[in-house]
């Protein structure tokens, strides 16, 4: 489980952002560095190629060559500088907090309030790299600070007020349990504690039983048997029935379903009576 930062959206809902750690950020940085090198090499070859071709219509042969090389080198020097310092600023400013490397790694720079960053934040976090990079080019200081900060920020992030978060696309839709929950909550029904002859079951315990039933087919045989026994045996006592070591997994699962059914009918009865009370007042 990765570290998380909590934000509150404009709708006043709490979201947990998963923070990126050193490994993911390192990978993204390596990829970006590779991109930079390739971009620069491409540019150099482009200029070497163009140097002979373009004359701007001038006829001063020697002069033109010198001019081309000079202007060319001037542009190269400027471009190299702008690339190295501006790469992060440009990409993060333009594409909502993602350099190509971050995109590849599923990372994104966001503001501390969860909103996307703009050029100001991108410039702030990228132009103070000199400190995070110490001793250059190891990023040791940045990594050290990041490790001690609960929000996993390097110095540049602190200054800009940004977080690097993971954007996860892998989602687990396998079981319908979550959706069932959501529908139930939407309809205003939440689990209530259930009282049985031998004692009461709390809402959480009922939840546990329901979770077990919905996921039982995903478990290994031994695990399923062990869990069924652990959950089922206390239920037997609560129901006031005799425990038997020979009871099968199926037996316990049927028992759990029975208990859940009781909880279902108990809560619907309650909500009906609740309505009646409302009507009285």
């Amino acid at each position, binding site marked *: 489980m990765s570290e998380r930062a909590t934000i509150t959206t404009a709708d006043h809902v709490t979201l947990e952002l998963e923070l990126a750690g050193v490994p993911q950020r390192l990978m993204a940085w390596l990829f970006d560095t590779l991109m930079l090198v390739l971009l620069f090499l491409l540019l150099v070859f482009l200029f070497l190629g163009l140097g002979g071709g373009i004359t701007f219509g001038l006829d001063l042969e020697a002069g033109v060559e*010198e001019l081309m090389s000079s202007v060319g080198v001037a542009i190269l020097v400027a471009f190299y*500088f702008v690339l190295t310092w501006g790469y992060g600023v440009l990409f993060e400013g333009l594409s909502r907090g993602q350099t190509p490397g971050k995109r590849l790694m599923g990372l994104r720079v966001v503001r501390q309030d969860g909103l996307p960053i703009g050029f100001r934040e991108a410039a*702030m976090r990228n132009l103070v790299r*000199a400190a995070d990079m110490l001793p250059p080019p190891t990023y040791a200081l940045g990594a050290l600070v990041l490790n001690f900060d609960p929000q996993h920020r390097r110095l540049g992030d602190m200054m*800009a007020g940004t977080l690097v978060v993971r*954007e996860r696309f892998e989602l687990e839709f396998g079981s319908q349990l979550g959706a069932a929950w959501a529908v139930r909550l939407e309809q205003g029904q939440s689990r209530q504690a259930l009282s049985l002859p031998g004692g009461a079951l709390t809402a959480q315990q009922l939840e546990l039983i329901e979770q077990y039933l919905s996921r039982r087919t995903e478990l290994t045989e031994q695990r399923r048997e062990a869990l069924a026994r652990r959950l089922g045996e206390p239920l037997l006592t609560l129901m006031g029935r005799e425990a038997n070591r020979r009871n099968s997994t199926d037996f316990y699962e049927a028992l759990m379903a029975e208990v859940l059914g009781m909880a279902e009918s108990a809560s619907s009865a309650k909500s009906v009576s609740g309505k009646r009370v409302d009507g009285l007042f």
Partner: protein
Amino acid sequence: MTGVDDPVIDPVIKKQQQWSQFAERTRRLLKEGRNALRGLSRAELVGLIDDYQRIIADLARARSMGAPRQTVDLLNRLAVMGHNLLYGYARPVHARGDGWLIHFARTVRKYGSAMGLSCLMLFGPMVISYLAVQWYPSLGFDLVPEGFYAFDPASSENLHDIPSLTRPMVSSSIITNNIQVTLMAFGLGLTAGIGTTAVLVFNGIHIGTVAGWMAVQGKSKALWGWILPHGSTELLAIAIAGGAGYLLAGAMVMPGLQRRSVALRAIGKDAMTIELGVMGMLVIAGLIEGFVSPSALPFEARLGVLGASILLWAAFFGGMGRKAGGETSLPRE
């Protein structure tokens, strides 16, 4: 598997589909990049926002009612994806509509003590090493970098030594090099100012010894006529960038009654403004250096450029955007 025909289970399947469809669409749009939302029709966009709000509502309910961890996690991820996709950049609100130049001058003026400290760290070592080389010229051999022993930009064959055709290159590399130095002085402020001080002091010593060395060798004219017309602007820019670095250092060393990261963030905006302005100054200085300094201008004209730039910066930082009543004066009764 038994419940598919069961009317009770139907809304559950529907809900499940809503979620997975939202995930699919959001993932696709996020991968498309920043302009993905522009490609949507109005109805599609409204539909997407509705779906997002349903997810958000589901998440809020699931959290407060204690739904299983997996459900909360799933909904949280969906909501974060939607949030990242749908919310736009919140433009900072500018209090005053003043131009950027005025803002820059005012910001520099606001932090006089940081600027003063930075000037001290740059110009102090510079003057000391200049004088030291004057008094003990043998020091020059220890301190002056080898490449600068015969540094003589203004000798007869050297005055126009930079062929006009290579000037763009000289200009370009000088600008970038200087900006690099200011980015160091600025960014290393985050090392509690140690790095900033190092950058300022080393640059000061370097410039001071070379200048002193030139003076010892009787090349003062070159110093004043060739280096200082642009050098004055550059030195000022480096000193101001150092001041911005010290602002960051101040937030780290003396954050006051707030967390260091909060103090850093508060001062960061102003420090960034200063650094951006400094970059602009260096572009001006680099253009002077690339095009004016190596030109055939007479010595007096060069001194004129030097004087003009000093006056210009003094006026700019001293008076630009200053209000009649004074910025720092107490409220008048």
